[in-house]
């Protein structure tokens, strides 16, 4: 694989760990648009992203990744489309402890598929219970129901290795999906 620069999007609902994931792997401190969260009923955390996160990571093979994170709340869905444009791959992060996790999967997959049908997908599910095999299968089934074929992983986005696994899987998918010349010039 030759040296190249690729745009990857991290998306998913509020509290799924998009900002944390980008922070875990970015070579330099990411650009952040976090502000105070005044919607504690939806998710009890202090801050929330309202525009985007932006980080960069250089892989050993010379590939440079530009990492964009979206806001999670539906009222910022206009940013999903703006940020999604031109991205070759999408990392969808989900929170298994959320009652709306499977619905969230459908919402984000449907939105990104509608705006950019050819994007490669990989799904990372966090906050799974200790014996999570069957729970992870629920996400695989829900994903299959959307018609999207993509790997689903249990992840802890605070762990750099977990996030890099998602990225490397995405790059493998891209490599198999695209003709070599097109991939190299992307």
């Amino acid at each position, binding site marked *: 694989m030759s040296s190249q620069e690729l745009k990857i999007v991290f998306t998913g609902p509020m509290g799924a760990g998009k900002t944390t994931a980008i922070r875990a792997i970015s070579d330099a401190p990411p650009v952040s648009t976090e502000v*105070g969260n005044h919607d504690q009923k939806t998710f009890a955390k202090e801050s929330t992203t309202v525009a985007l996160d932006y980080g960069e990571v250089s892989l050993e093979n010379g590939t440079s990744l530009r990492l964009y994170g979206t806001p999670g709340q539906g*009222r910022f869905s206009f940013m999903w489309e703006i940020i999604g444009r031109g991205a070759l791959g999408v990392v969808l992060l989900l929170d298994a402890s959320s009652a709306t996790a499977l619905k969230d999967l459908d919402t984000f997959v449907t939105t990104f598929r509608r705006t950019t049908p050819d994007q490669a997908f990989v799904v990372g599910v966090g906050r799974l219970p200790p014996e999570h095999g069957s729970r992870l299968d629920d996400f695989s089934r829900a994903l299959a129901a959307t018609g999207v074929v993509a790997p689903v992983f249990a992840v802890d986005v605070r762990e750099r290795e977990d996030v890099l696994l998602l990225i490397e899987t995405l790059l493998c998918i891209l490599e198999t999906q695209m003709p070599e010349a097109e991939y190299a010039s992307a």
Partner: protein
Amino acid sequence: MHPPDARFGTEVAGRAQAHLEELGATNKGISLAVLTSEDGFEIAAYRGAETSGRIAAMSSSLQALSEAISREAGLASSQGLIIESENGKIIVLGVASTAPRVSLAVVAGLNETLGTLLWAARNCCKSLEQALRK
């Protein structure tokens, strides 16, 4: 979308609404003014319409981006931004020292000059700051 006053209380929303009405009454070219919490919720709106909730969320994103690019460029904290389009202009200004942090988005047609609009919006922000002070 939550109603404008549901999250921040009717008293805060009422005080903010009065200042937005005054801004609109003295500047006839203003077609919309929205006061928005830093995380994108509409608190009050002058000539609020179906789109005001969406404009509110967008203005909070823009304000956050203007602050991020100011930081990245090594400048002091962003006070706001100006968007000039073919048919009018939009100003988004941060309102200092309020809890929650808020921003004001003002939309106006071509008949309102940029200088007048900016002056009026900044004065409105000062009034809002007094009214919503922490």
